[in-house]
């Protein structure tokens, strides 16, 4: 137990500092995001995550957005286990033909109004996997998307930034229903 306590105190709070560019991005993004979430989502936005066919790299970075450095929960972002009480659907990967139904069902299980954020280059247009017999290509081919976050994979700070864009109607880039 003493070891654990010593480790806790010697680690301190590692959230930040990031590199100057990233730091300003994440604190500015974070502050804006917190404000939006406070006003529009009663201080907490619930996200349901679906991997619709990704290679797992985007999942790693979405995980990292929750690690003590980025700590996305401090802005009021919270990943939920059920689509039933989710505000935002985060989708990675090209949509594989075998995941098409599951993705649509998850989307339909969410109450409206809802937002969809597609993560990664594959989520935008199928990326290196393209469209084919087993891949339906980008997420937008299957469900309406509000915001695309590009990158292969996008960095955790970019994912958090994408969520900010989703909750800020003016910055919408896709064809989703919005809020």
């Amino acid at each position, binding site marked *: 137990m003493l070891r654990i306590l010593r480790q806790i105190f010697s680690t301190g709070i590692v959230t930040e500092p990031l590199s100057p560019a990233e730091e300003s991005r994440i604190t500015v993004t974070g502050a804006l995001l917190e404000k939006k979430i406070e006003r529009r989502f009663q201080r907490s936005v619930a996200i349901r995550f679906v991997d619709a066919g990704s290679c797992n790299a985007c999942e790693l970075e979405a995980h990292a957005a929750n690690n003590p450095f980025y700590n996305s929960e401090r802005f009021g972002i919270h990943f939920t286990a059920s689509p039933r009480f989710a505000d935002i659907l985060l989708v990675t990967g090209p949509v594989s033909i075998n995941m098409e139904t599951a993705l649509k069902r998850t989307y339909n299980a969410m109450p409206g109004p809802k937002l969809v954020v597609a993560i990664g280059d594959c989520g935008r247009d199928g990326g290196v*996997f393209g469209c084919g017999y087993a891949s339906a290509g980008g997420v937008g081919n299957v469900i309406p998307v509000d915001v695309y976050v590009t990158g292969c994979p996008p960095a955790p700070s970019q994912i958090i930034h994408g969520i900010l864009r989703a909750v800020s109607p003016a910055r919408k880039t896709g064809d989703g229903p919005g809020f």
Partner: protein
Amino acid sequence: MMNWPKEIIASSIGNDNLRELARCGGVTAAYGVPREFFAMAAKALKGAGQPGGLAGQLAVLDGWRLAAEWATDETPFGRGFAVFAAYNSGTEYVIVKSDLPQDDPSFPSLAGIFTPALRFERQIQSLMGVSPEAHPDLRPWIKHEDWPWDVYPLRKSFDGKTPLKKVPGGDYPWARADGEGVYEIPVGPVHAGIIEPGHFRFQAVGEDIINLEEKLGYVHKGIEKRFESLGWIFGARLAARVSGDSTVAHSIAFSMAVEAASMVAPAQRALWMRAVMLERERIANHLGDIGAICNDTAFAFLHHQFSILREKVLRANQRFFGHRLMMDRVLPGGAAVDMDKDASEEMLKEIVWLSKEFEKLVVIYEDNPSLEDRVWGAGVLSPSVAKELGTVGFVARASGQALDARVQNPFAPYDRIVPKVPVLTSGDVHARAWVRVEEVRESMRLIREMLQDIPRGRLCVPCPAPRPGAEGFSAVEGWRGEIIYWVQAGPLSSTAGPLSSTDAGINRCMVRDPSSVNWLALEEAILGNIVPDFPLCNKSFNQSYSGHDL
């Protein structure tokens, strides 16, 4: 000594039925046998030992292991189909091939001899339409029940560019269990956390799991078919995305297979850079997963501590190599990133720091009785089952199998800087975590030694496309285990990559991720455990869905 596999097979099927194939690079040998002898050859290899000790002293140790099995459509060469099996024993890999006629593509199944063949052959049947005779379970695999059953995507006659028309109403016959108090829990494909999709079906009595059946294939994106249209150059980009957490290992494996087919020796310096990146990938994933195992026992403290270390390693990757996961840093012929002296000194310092921090956490892991209570004795995979299932990687090493492709199939610098392979025999969650603790330590040592004397010189040599019909094989130890690639160049006229229109394109690129064999081991290890321990056991295996489903 080199004749050994040949003698084993010949003694069983006769010399006249064995033909040596010359075109495949990267293996000890490749043989052609008539298809009626395909299973006999497998049986002979399984029963045979490997010469051990002094020359001539034939101590029978273990039989050969079936490492991969796949089929090809060779109609562009004016032939029919073919089925291949790759076997490994010690440091040797051999391939046995049987040609199959186009109008009757079937072969004797290996499923009764090697258990991993069960799924390899279901996959061959589902995607290539080549039938294993007397296979006990021919339900489609990867290809789901709403696909037309007689459509075979890997055949040349199939157009991979158009989306598949689904046929509604298909059914997948699951294994069933009846009896008083038996109930079923279906889970997935969409899971509660941020993980990949797959379906698990449990039969349980009370809390005890009496059967688990996996259904995978949800993230099947048609990767093997895609390789054929992308060609050699863009294929490297695709290989880097077969399984995003093993991007370096897959890139190396693809590059080595292409180099073997092209008969090109990659730049020496690049080999060392590849090894440094491969070990960094191993460290980053092990750190994240050891923490995640702790998290699944509700010990969030270590999870956060390990994720801090992992993040530091990823950020260092960004500084050294320009990408957090080191994607697209390895290419056929060499590597795409270099390090100068300053960077190498910085990395040495980073490793010293990391080692110190890591050891502090390991002490806490060892010290904690509530953690011990959950990880010891949970999800046991016994050494005999691990061997029977042909498991690889840390899963195999935690269950008594001394397998490591860095030792079995070493590329420089692993031939000089030899990794110590940790082997445990208890096969439980703790063993799988502890093997990875030892591997993190060993990887840090390897990086330190490699950085001492990276050879100078160029980073990349030109790697021309393989000659028509050439084949190349590779086996690389990623953090999950042995990754196998096998590539075959098409004839001159086949579809070539956009930048190499005068060369032969890819006729077939076979990918065997370690998950393809290790998923089966989870089904065995979970038996008799309680349902709430499934996430913990699953995490301790942490197999790839994308690498398996392709």
